[in-house]
């Protein structure tokens, strides 16, 4: 009996010594070398820090408020845009059934537009080819003039504008706030390395923020799949998954920006204001100025002007000429269209080139192109409609056989290929920002 007790006591003692020793080695690692610390121990420490931070954040009132708010907005937005999609789809099918006698090229509304409407209102229309040009019928009910005064609050907008702001609100005092409360000294006086502290802080905030987000989006998709006629194919689901992944990377940039400024700023109020201004410049000012600046460089006429020019050609030729009118109209029209298309594409290229300087625009391009509602899709559709128009013209407007317009939307690989730069830009922004965060935090003056 006694011996066993002694043995257990001894073993307890041993364990104590072990822990002491391990703690000793831990403190030593900071001074001596990193090599002594085993990988497993590192993970354990990391996980404890993350757990501590997570618990702290979960108890935080503002985290709770932010999460509830964004869960609410995202579910509202999904409802609204699912509704919007279904209505447009309905209009589309009605249009299709009634316009069988025209040379009509129509694209159905994109189901993925529920997440990012992008230019889908512009692409998902019916384009009716006639000698005077291309008549356009929209599936949209956008006579409600207010639509053009406000922006479209789809999931992409929520990620781009609102969640990025929330990310900053969650991180602006990550370091400087702890310094002000005096807990940072305490944290760093322990045996934990600074890199671990900062990784823990970032990772905890990031994970606790993203988990509910993933939950609400996936449950949203499930609800849409089950309770509405909307059905996403497996390809669509992959696209949505990729969209979420990229959105995660995008939000990480803001987490890093908030943390970075939090390590540089002397006070948390200054940190907040600087990060808010950075947010303002990157999210609103740079992207929204780009189209104006691109228009300074490349001048191209408005839609009104083009419509009138086409009509003028139509009237003029019919008045002057007696025979072969439709061929003459078409040839003059195509000259006009060629000129316009060149300028238009030139404008779009300039616009894209200019706007690539901000990761926000890169994110928007990447997201909308993946979800088939971006400028790439718009260009692809334009090319297809023009090809269809040429086809109709070659056959002649009086011919019995009608060419069919078959539209295949861009595949994922197309979107990824042409957005390689954008993707790299986002990843590199993340990497640089994280390096800066480490650099500044390691040199951080805790006093």
């Amino acid at each position: 009996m006694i011996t066993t007790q002694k043995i257990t006591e001894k073993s307890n003692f041993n364990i104590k010594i072990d822990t002491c020793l391990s703690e000793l080695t831990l403190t030593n690692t900071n001074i001596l070398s990193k090599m002594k610390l085993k990988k497993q121990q590192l993970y354990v420490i990391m996980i404890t820090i993350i757990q501590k931070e997570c618990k702290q954040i979960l108890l935080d009132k503002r985290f709770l408020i932010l999460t509830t708010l964004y869960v609410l907005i995202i579910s509202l937005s999904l409802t609204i845009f699912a509704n919007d999609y279904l209505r447009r789809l309905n209009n589309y099918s009605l249009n299709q059934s009634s316009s069988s006698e025209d040379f009509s090229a129509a694209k159905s509304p994109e189901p993925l537009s529920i997440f990012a409407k992008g230019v889908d209102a512009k692409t998902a229309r019916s384009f009716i080819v006639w000698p005077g040009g291309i008549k356009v019928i929209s599936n949209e009910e956008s006579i409600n003039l207010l639509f053009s005064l406000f922006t479209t609050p789809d999931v992409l907008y929520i990620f781009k504008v609102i969640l990025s702001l929330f990310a900053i609100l969650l991180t602006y005092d990550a370091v400087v706030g702890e310094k002000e409360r005096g807990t940072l000294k305490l944290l760093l006086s322990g045996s934990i390395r600074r890199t671990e502290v900062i990784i823990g802080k970032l990772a905890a905030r990031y994970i606790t923020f993203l988990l509910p987000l993933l939950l609400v989006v996936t449950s949203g998709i499930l609800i849409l799949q089950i309770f509405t006629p909307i059905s996403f194919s497996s390809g669509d689901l992959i696209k949505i998954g990729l969209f979420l992944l990229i959105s995660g990377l995008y939000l990480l940039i803001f987490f890093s920006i908030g943390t970075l400024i939090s390590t540089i700023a002397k006070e948390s109020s200054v940190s907040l204001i600087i990060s808010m201004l950075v947010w303002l410049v990157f999210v609103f000012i740079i992207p929204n100025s780009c189209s104006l600046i691109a228009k300074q460089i490349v001048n191209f006429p408005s839609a009104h002007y083009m419509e009138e020019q086409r009509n003028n050609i139509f009237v003029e030729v019919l008045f002057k000429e007696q025979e072969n009118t439709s061929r003459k109209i078409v040839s003059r029209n195509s000259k006009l269209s060629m000129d316009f298309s060149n300028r238009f594409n030139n404008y779009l290229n300039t616009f894209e080139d200019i706007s690539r300087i901000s990761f926000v625009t890169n994110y928007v391009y990447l997201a909308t192109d993946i979800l088939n509602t971006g400028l790439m899709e718009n260009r692809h559709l334009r090319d297809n409609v023009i090809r269809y128009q040429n086809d109709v013209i070659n056959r002649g407007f009086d011919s019995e056989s009608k060419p069919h317009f078959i539209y295949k939307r861009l595949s994922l690989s197309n979107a990824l290929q042409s957005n390689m730069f954008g993707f790299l830009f986002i990843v590199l922004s993340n990497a640089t920002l994280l390096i800066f965060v480490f650099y500044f935090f390691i040199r951080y003056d805790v006093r």
Partner: protein
Amino acid sequence: MIWEIAKKEIKINFLTFKFNISFILLFFIVIISSVVLATNYNRKVSEYQERVISNNRILDNYATMNRIQNSIKAIKPPTKMSSLFQGISDDLLVNSFDDDPTKVLFPLVDWIFIIGVIGSLLVVFLSYDSVIGEKEKGTLQLLLSHSLPKAKLLLGKLLGGLFSIIPPFIISVLAGLLVILLIANPEWGSKDYFALGYILFASLLFFTVIFLIGLIISSKVESSAAAVFAHLLTWVILVLIIPNLSPFISTILYPIPSADMISKQLYHLMNVEREEVIERELNKHKNSGLTEAEMFKKIGLDEIQERYRSRANKIQESYINQVMAQTLIAMNIAAISPYAQFLYIATDVSGVGVVNTINYLEMEEMYLNRMNSFMRKKYEEAVKSSNDFSIDDKLQLTERPTFNYAELGLAPRIIYTTPYILLLIIYNAIGFFISYKIFKRKPIV
């Protein structure tokens, strides 16, 4: 005493880092966007002139009864103040293969955005710690230890905040205005300057509402960190969420058929149903040996035409009413937010808002009617003078009525936006009252 406090507030604000950096940013954004908006305006003006010239050329040289319908256009000149406020774009009214998709992805930076989003965010920065910051520093106790009533302190803070916003704001606006006038020369009259002044007044009212929300939150919460958090969230909800959701919510609450469906319905009514009825009536008298004109008289062709035309008008009218109802619902939902109130005032008074667009559409319709009756008259005259005049022969339209776009007068524009100004004033009053109530009960230790 109020002025003493206000002066102190202004002095403190001018010395803070956040204040200075905010307004340097505001200044540069205003300058840059003004340069861009001005050149943009110049382009629009020259394009407008080009359009008028080419339209006149067509109407002068190639007008025939048969083909000219689509060339009769009420071409709208760019609104003078659209060099500052973009509002509802003219391109919205045309559905074209060639429209610019980039606007949808990235809306433009105009003065509405600068004042409404950037300006109000800067006001948030100025106001969130006005009470709690002083409490944290310990100076609130000092201030109230003298015989200073709390209402006066609050008013002083409000005025101080407001008067520290006004000078840099006015400086930025004037600099931007100078840029616009130098580059674009939009030929403003006294009315336009008054309208601009009125919009700036509305934007100050909007700023005070945001400031008062800051005061309320600042007197309510326990720390300045909580204050800024709560204030920013309120700002997000009021500026970014409510206005943007409102049009979509109204389409769910009050769904209407698409414009295209209505035009299909009208086409069916006029070109299928009406034709069928006329044909059926004509078939009845097929073998009576009457001439065509006599047959038309017998079946009452004019009456049938009239009946269908009035039916079509009724459909159109009821559709327009539905659209208006939907827009109104959306406007009223959004009008909860002071940002939307400011936006309505800015767009309507500057001539690029919903009322102005409706006004243009009405003028367009009137002009088209006038032009059509003028053409019919000309055509009938031509037919009378020579019997073989057909619809494909050239019409003389030299003394045709011209479209003179007259913007809605300043008085109706201001009257129309009065409810929103009143709402802003009411919000201000309520805001001050609540902030006073809360501040009175706040323990100062």
